[in-house]
């Protein structure tokens, strides 16, 4: 009887093994593709329908970008881009060809099921702040 009890305990212990919990990781943010300006403000004034932003496109690949139909933007030439943190980005930097790196604070909200990129920058005087909301072109 004593041996049977011991055997049951051993079997019970042997049945236990630590379960490894998979820690969910935040995916890297993917902005590859063509983006357009859906909203633009200058010093808080909405310019979206007042200025011709409709032709502007920025095409992001893994580390480079190209610009079509330039409007006042953080950079005026194509080049390389990077997040400050690919998992939790708070800043988006652009390094145009033959130019210094320029960074913008980044917001990355999902609005109406669509991922938006919101960047803030000053293409001219630093006292003039522009905020563009970009959305991927379908």
């Amino acid at each position, binding site marked *: 009887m004593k041996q049977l009890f011991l055997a049951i305990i051993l079997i019970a212990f042997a049945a236990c093994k630590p379960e490894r919990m998979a820690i969910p990781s935040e995916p890297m943010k993917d902005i590859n593709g063509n983006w357009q300006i859906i909203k633009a403000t*200058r*010093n808080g*004034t909405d*310019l979206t329908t*007042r*200025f011709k932003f409709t032709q502007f496109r920025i095409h992001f690949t893994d580390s480079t970008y190209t610009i079509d139909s*330039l*409007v*006042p933007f953080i950079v*005026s030439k194509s080049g390389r881009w990077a997040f400050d943190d690919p998992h939790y980005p708070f800043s988006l930097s652009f390094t145009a060809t033959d130019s210094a790196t320029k960074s913008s604070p980044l917001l990355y909200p999902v609005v109406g099921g669509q991922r938006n990129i919101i960047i803030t920058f000053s*293409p*001219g*005087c*630093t*006292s*003039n702040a*522009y905020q563009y909301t970009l959305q991927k072109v379908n």
Partner: protein
Amino acid sequence: MKTIYFSNILRWLKAHPSYYWKAPGIILLLVIASCSITIDSVVQPGSVNGGDILPVTLNVTIQTNQGQTSKFMVAVLVPKIWKASQNTTITFTSDITSGDQPMTVIPAGTPAPNGNGLDWPTYLVNKIGNGGNLLNDYEWVAFYSNAAYAIGGNVTVHATVSIKIKTSPDNLLFKLGYCVAESTDGLSDPQYYNSNFPGCFAVNGTGDLIDFCNPQLAVIDPRTSQDNDIITITFDGGVTMTLLNNAPQVYLCAKGYLTNGDSVSVCAQTTDTEMRNLGLNRWQKDLWPRGYFHLSDDQHLARLSYFFTDASGTVMVGYGGGSDPFTYTFKCQ
């Protein structure tokens, strides 16, 4: 200054039960009648030369009903170009203090009391306004006294505030504004603050006149920009009768002067130069100068001159409605 000793009121009401129904009114009356702060007079010159110190004196009276310990707040409405937070000193003397009392700029982002989280400059714009300045390039700069002062109840205090602002070299007209308050009640009720706008003030400086006081036939926003900004040109034909009064379309005729001495014109009457009708003889155009004048990478604009024209291009309206062009210089503050 709105601290009320409710225990005294309750004790009195117990002795006079017939007044219970009037209690809310009595309390409200006591709160409303508890304090006032007024700017009795503003002593300010009508003009100074560009770069000079602008001396201003405010004579202020504070009347209390109940005791309170607060900091004194003085704010000035000034053109941003003065960078007044770095170029202003404010001190005051009063009946209850000895010698000049220093004041310091309230750091940006510091919430104003009872301001729903707004900082002083934003709260002042929302509550007091812009004094009628027509160009959106002004700011309120607020100062607190370095010390807090205990003032007893039923006291009248006279204070003399000395403000010294170093002006910029720019040629401008501006409606200066002043506001006084204290750090406990803020701008929560008109009795706790007072403001004063003495009228249009001139700085006889250099460069194009920056006129905040008078409606302009043409205005460019932002007031300071470079050729890589988007600028908004507004033609307000309602300011005065011009040759374009009631014109069905208005066009922009502009010449850009480059930093290398060359110039480039865009003056044809096309959809690219047509202005947006805002109604009431007001017209507007948003443009990006680098794109508008098709500049190459090594070309940069120093300034603009421009007219407004009718569809034929033969009727042109310039500065003051005349035949000289409006001008705009690209520069940052």
